[in-house]
């Protein structure tokens, strides 16, 4: 029974992420377009909303190339290894007040730990491609993702400390409005670290278009490449939802459907902000990225944690 339920959850998560990615890609193209003084997709549907309905089947129908010299099985299944953890991480997002698909007592730890497995998939895909540019991209991705785990975890910990729980539903339950000013720095750190985790601009070094063409997935075509894209958008959706829930109290505002709508709406605003940043700022360099992580973000997160801890103790 639980297996069946898990399967249903899995399907739902994939559906959510796939659907979210489809809408997300369209939205990103529109946002980028407007920032760049142009229109973005226009032809299919109002304002081109159905553009992705053409893009996805096209990618499905594309030839599935495995390059000569690639490690075939690894090459084929590495995208799954990138996508699956991110899809799984959605399971602990508290969509409803007091309810999450997987209401684990260590939900926060789950959310922070599981997507990190994706780095393995990236490394594997980079290595399997047998391509120098991919390899460099994979190495960059690994270094970046592992490093940014630290400030992200520390930032989330401040909320955990305040709530005194690792269970996301409990944290949202314990959320009070004054957490927002108190954990604002932590939220910022969390967002920046999450953007770096999902390899998006201005931290998109692993796939830096102007340097590495497309980084670790340079050799993937068709649907396998689409999986990478879905993973990227999925992790953006998951991070936005989770961040909204933990730091802003997402589902705790209103009860019922209104709460869900408000929660998802705020998450969408955050996603838009992430996209906006990508199209506004230049890309960072690897060493700056690392320096930024260890000398700015981590200390900030630590300070935030201390403050949150102090407040928690004082209470």
């Amino acid at each position, binding site marked *: 029974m639980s297996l069946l339920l898990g399967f249903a959850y899995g399907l739902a998560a994939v559906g959510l992420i796939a659907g979210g990615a489809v809408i997300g890609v369209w939205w990103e193209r529109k946002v980028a377009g*407007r*920032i*760049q*003084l*142009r229109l973005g997709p*226009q032809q299919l549907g109002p304002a081109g909303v159905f553009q992705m309905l053409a893009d996805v089947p096209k990618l499905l129908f594309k030839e599935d190339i495995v390059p000569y010299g690639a490690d075939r099985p690894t090459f084929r299944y590495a995208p799954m290894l990138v996508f699956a953890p991110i899809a799984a991480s959605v399971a602990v997002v508290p969509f409803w007040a007091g309810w999450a698909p997987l209401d684990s007592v260590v939900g926060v730890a789950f959310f922070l730990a599981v997507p990190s497995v994706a780095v393995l998939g990236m490394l594997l895909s980079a290595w399997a491609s047998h391509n120098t540019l991919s390899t460099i991209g994979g190495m960059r991705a690994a270094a970046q993702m592992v490093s940014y785990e630290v400030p992200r975890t520390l930032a989330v910990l401040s909320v955990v400390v305040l709530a005194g729980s690792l269970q996301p539903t409990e944290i949202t339950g314990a959320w009070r409005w004054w957490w927002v000013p108190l954990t604002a720095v932590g939220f910022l750190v969390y967002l920046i670290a999450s953007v770096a985790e999902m390899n998006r601009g201005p931290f998109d070094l692993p796939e830096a278009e102007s340097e590495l063409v497309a980084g670790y997935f340079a050799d993937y075509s068709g649907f396998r490449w689409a999986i990478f894209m879905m993973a990227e958008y999925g992790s953006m959706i998951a991070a936005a939802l989770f961040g909204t829930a933990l730091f802003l109290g997402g589902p705790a505002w209103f009860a019922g459907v209104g709460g869900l709508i408000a929660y998802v709406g705020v998450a969408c605003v955050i996603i838009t902000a992430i996209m*906006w*940043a990508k199209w*506004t*700022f230049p890309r960072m360099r690897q060493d700056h990225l690392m320096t930024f992580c260890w000398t700015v973000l981590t200390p900030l997160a630590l300070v935030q944690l201390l403050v949150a801890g102090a407040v928690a103790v004082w209470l």
Partner: protein
Amino acid sequence: MRTPQSVTDDFRDGVAGFLERTRSLITGVMVTVRAVRRGPVTVRYPAEKLTVSDRWRGPLRLRGALGADTMPVLTGLPTTHNETIDGLYHAERLPGCVGNCPANVDARGQAYLIADDRVAEAYELVRERNIMPGVLGRICHHPCESACRRNHYDEPIATRPLHRFAFEEFQRVRPEKLTPCERTRQQTVAVIGSGPSGMAAAYDLLRLGYGVVMYESDEHPGGALRTGVPAYRLPREVLGREIEDIVEMGLDLKCGVEIGKDLPLGKVVQDHDAVLLAVGLQQSRILPLPGTDSRGVRGALEFLRAGNRTGDAGVRGKRVFVVGGGNVAVDVARVALRVGASEVRLACLEGEDEMPCHPWEIAEALDEGVIATCSLGPDSVVSRDGAVVGMRMRACLSVFDETGRFAPKMGDEFTEFPCDVVVFAIGQAAKLDTLVAGTGLLVSGRGQLQASGTDYTTSVPGVFACGEVITGPGSAIASIATGHEAAISIDRYLSGLAVDDDARVRRPVPRYPHYPPVALEDVEPDRRRRPQRLEPPDERVADFRPVEHGFTRDEALLEAGRCLQCGSEVCVGCTFCARTCPDLALTVVRDDTPGSRCVATYEMDLTKCCFCGLCAEQCPTNALVHTGQYELSFYHREYTTFHVGEMLRSGEGTRATGRDGGPADACAERVVGEEAR
């Protein structure tokens, strides 16, 4: 916004720097926000299209092509002609030959009709403006040829020899072509003088339906053409034939009547509704130098008159010295040779390469043995016992001053040339005293008739004047032009219109570029001008036989085919677009079969075209133009080659497909068919 001393710009250190750094990120976001609020600048293609500039260099098209379109021919009565010319001029479609001709003779149309083997039509077309094509075809100084666009490519079209050829061909069909003009007006006009200007005015007035009476003081009509132009240039039968043609049109020609002597001008004015004075210049000017009263000093006109009429000017075996460097001087010198002078020397103020006469004239004269001494001005006639024995000349340093005015600067070097006869060919003057006696006509202090140079009116209403008597010494074609203008004035006067009002269209006077000489070594022979065959110089000086031979039929047709039909907007397949194209994207072949000439092949390989526009810029006809089309997608490479039919497409819209042109060209089919056979 001032440029800083150095573009290097750093953040400050410390907290201020941190704030600056943070602010820089916010500034970036603000810029994007402003951009979003500004809205997109996108052109929503294909629904919206960016307007393409007028000069857009899209794929080429032809406005027309030989064989598919007819060539415009400039024809019409004198009263409408100026309008046509003016319209063409403002549309920049006036061909250089027409614009540069004083009478606006349609040399372009002539070449087209001759090449198309419609020679009689060509003759009639030319005669509308140049009333005596046969005559002018021998003596004209052809300003058309110097403005010919072909000068830019190789050599000009031989328009003058083509006039002559047209005249000769016309003689065959002359009888059925000649019809008297219908008299539609009651008024009559008297024309005094039967030179080219008078004839031109009479011709126009006859066509306008007036009755015209012409008085000529001489026994034979023709004026200066008969008395001044030597027969080796103009055979008298040609002149006679063309005057006869005009007489047959209804001209009442009265020869041997000298107005002022045999018939007072006042009487003529009374008898006719209008009078035109076209008396020309009858006497030579002689410089008031020491010794000019000696025996042997003669004027050019008298000399020529004697030589032309009798073939003897009284200089047999004598040494003749001609003063002057103009065309008349050359004529005098050459006539002198033909009437038996033992030595003819010509002296002029100007240097060798700036002689006022036409270069071909002096070249022929030199061939015949005339000696030209340049940069010399006359000082005095040396005489002994009242007879000329020599001419004393003074070196001339420069003829014109800085502003270009005639102001000869003489040197101190003197040369004396022994000779027996000195002929002054330095200009002519009008002889008006007997003519105007007893009328209200005013004559200026310098002996010139007071008349308007634009309306050809005189001080007496109803009396007009034209020709050299107004303009001073000039060319025959310029005199004809004044005749046409005077005819318009007379017509307006007799119709009760103001002669000089704004409704009257004046002929524009365009300026044409001076074409630099073209290096002809690399030019293919069939692109060159057909050479004019001449009598050998040592034989032709013996008598007054014509010097030039004229074209044969084949030569004439080929020569006429060289015409570029400038400004006609119909492609004649001149190939210069293909030659100019850096990539030979164009292939042009013309079929020159007389009677069905056409552009057999005009292929544009769009894929080689670099859209530089050099071809359309140099197209003499303006037939080749750029379209505003830019949608040039093709599924097959073959269709990027446009044939004649496709080149003749309308050029509208933004897509050129290579298949939306007209039907396949009949001419092209014919050529293909012939090749197959």
